[in-house]
């Protein structure tokens, strides 16, 4: 590989510190159960170490792309293995596994979400709850509200943006309050 090199143990640790949490987040986004995520990320690094002889990219962007490629292979292998296991399990057990993987949520997170929703306009709140909480699609929401799907889509996109801003503000205010409460 051009522009690549081998790296030492210390650099591998730094690499793990840099990418570990990020890969965990990506794994969650790919629907990997919480109980398997850490193992999956370890697997990514094991494969990266195995493949280091071919050279590790120097450039930070190339390095990220290289790690991402390995991650994608590991995720694909994970689902293949899981599919094989599920064929061997009696029906229903896979759902139980999923439920067990659901981690209990932070009370403060719930409070921040409630506050963020409360700060949205009624129209945004309604569309967001119907979509995100009730799981309705834009085409299902449109007749409920008597609006065109395109309009509902625009309202939903706007609602999600507003939710992001309000959620950030709500979290910040909760952090400030916690700091005040814990005080000197």
């Amino acid at each position: 590989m051009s522009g690549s090199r081998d790296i030492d143990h210390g650099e591998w640790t730094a690499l793990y510190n840099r990418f570990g949490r990020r890969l965990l987040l990506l794994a969650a986004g790919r629907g990997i159960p919480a109980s398997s995520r850490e193992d999956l990320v370890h697997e990514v690094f094991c494969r990266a170490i195995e493949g280091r002889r071919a050279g590790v990219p120097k450039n930070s962007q190339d390095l990220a792309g290289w790690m991402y490629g390995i991650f994608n292979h590991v995720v694909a292998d994970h689902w293949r293995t899981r599919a094989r296991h599920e064929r061997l399990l009696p029906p229903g057990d896979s759902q139980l596994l999923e439920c067990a993987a659901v981690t209990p949520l932070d009370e403060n997170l719930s409070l921040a979400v409630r506050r963020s929703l409360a700060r949205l306009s009624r129209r945004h709140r309604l569309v967001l709850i119907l979509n995100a909480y009730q799981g309705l699609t834009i085409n299902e929401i449109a007749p409920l509200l008597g609006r065109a799907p395109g309009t509902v889509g625009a309202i939903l996109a706007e609602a999600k943006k507003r939710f992001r801003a309000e959620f950030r503000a709500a979290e910040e205010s909760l952090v400030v309050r916690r700091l005040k409460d814990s005080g000197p």
Partner: protein
Amino acid sequence: MTMVDEGAQTHHKFDEEIVDYCFGDLAEDRRAAFEVHLLTCDGCFAEVEHLVAGVRTLRGHAQASAGALHRSDLIGLLGLSGDLDEPFAGHLKFVALATSGYAILSAEALLTELSYFLDRFGRVALWTVPLALVWVGLAMLAAFNTGLRLTRADRSNALLASGAVFVTVVGLMLVGAQVILPHEPSIASAFVPRTVAAANLRNYVLYGLPLGLLFLLIPFQFVVAIQRDLVRGRHENVLRFFSKDPLAISPRGAVYIPPVILGGMLGVAAIYLVVANQYLLDNLLAGPHSELFTTLIYLRIGTGLALGGGGLAWYIRMLNEAKREALARRSPDSGSLL
């Protein structure tokens, strides 16, 4: 373009995709590029990490934890009570329309009284009409705001204070008008006409103040008080109140006027206004501006009835929404969320 500009632009492009990514809406072809960016950008990673947790809480995972979103929270968020902390408790449009409509009606009424002899009173009309428009608009806005603030604070004098602000500010204007407006007949008619100042005072005492209080301020105050009671979890009492249960307590700081009574009053007022004004127009002597006067009379009746009718329609709609929310909160674990 410098490297820094290019980097900032790329980052900005990815920043716009954060929401789509966290809600799982990012197109497959954009996702890979975004995820590679996440591996290198600390800012985007931190943002995504936070928002993903929020989105997960918002979604079904919330049902699995004790402190998550409860059904009753959602009913509140979807219903009237969720808007209590919004500007004007979520009734900004109503307040804007009511305030501007009432101010226009007041200005229109004054212009009507000055229009018959516009050649003589034109100069006075030129500055008193805009002044009345602004003054009355501000009075109405101050009254809405006072009532809202005190209702949010659970004060029992909310309606009284709101009404007092309105009557006092409009009263001050009427006192000033008695000094400023001409003490000369407002029209030439077969009967002895009132002076402009007296006619203006009569318009407010007989029509303007009752309309503002009964159709706008009191209903608004009652709706906000119900919203507050729903937020405080008094939905059982709200339901009892609407069911005319003798044990139900009226919301603090508000007076309930049943819509049917308001509807009846509006109907009687409509008949009276048409008959009384027809009598006035039948006895009106022709003058250079009698046509303008007649037009303004009809416009004034129309504006007044539209304002009263609009206030009543809003009131009925809000009461129904409040009932719907109170019912949904009473049985939080049964039926559909909607």
